[in-house]
């Protein structure tokens, strides 16, 4: 499908995703939008791991019906499984901390929720 392209298109897509995620993290003040930016960063890294192991004209690495010579690499797919579960656990913990901050200080703004003053 990408035979006519002289440069690597999926790697550029990953670079764009990570760049957008970093812009969101550095410039937003609402805490929930910050957490969304971290979710986009996790998705970008998972996409990068999977596209590292693609072989041209390859099939899935399951032995039920497939020729062995053209299988895709299985190790990056295994690492991506672990990374997705870790992203889910991290996002759950971060969101419950945001709910806790909202209950104690009454606002979801990052500048107004600093209680260590003076």
């Amino acid at each position, binding site marked *: 499908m990408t035979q006519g392209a002289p440069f690597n298109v999926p*790697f550029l897509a990953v670079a764009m995703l990570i*760049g957008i995620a970093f812009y969101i993290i550095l410039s937003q003040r609402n805490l929930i939008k910050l957490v969304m930016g971290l979710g986009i960063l996790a998705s970008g890294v998972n996409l990068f791991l999977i596209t590292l192991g*693609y*072989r041209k004209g390859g099939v899935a690495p*399951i032995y039920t019906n497939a020729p062995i010579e053209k299988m895709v690499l*299985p*190790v990056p797919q*295994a690492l991506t499984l672990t990374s997705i579960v*870790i992203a889910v656990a991290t996002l759950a*913990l971060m969101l419950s901390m945001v709910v806790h901050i909202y209950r104690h200080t009454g606002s979801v703004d990052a500048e107004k929720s600093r209680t260590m003053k003076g």
Partner: protein
Amino acid sequence: MRKIVLAISLSIFIAFLIAAALLLHPFGYPPSQMDDYIIENTQRETGANSAVTAVVFDYRGFDTLGEATILFTAVTGVIMLFRKKKME
């Protein structure tokens, strides 16, 4: 002032990302020696019909143990944050 520093650092970072994306190996021809060994010897050594499950649970089972620990710690943290105050 803050926006100028943000713009300069973000543009340098994105330039590095795009340069790294263009200089990687060509998409579709990965260097693969470890995976060739795994694809050839999975059915004889582990007896599973799927290479991905064999890698997750047999060749790299220690990483799965670490991930199970992370899941357990996150669930413990969430349940602890939502307890009701029973202090008297």
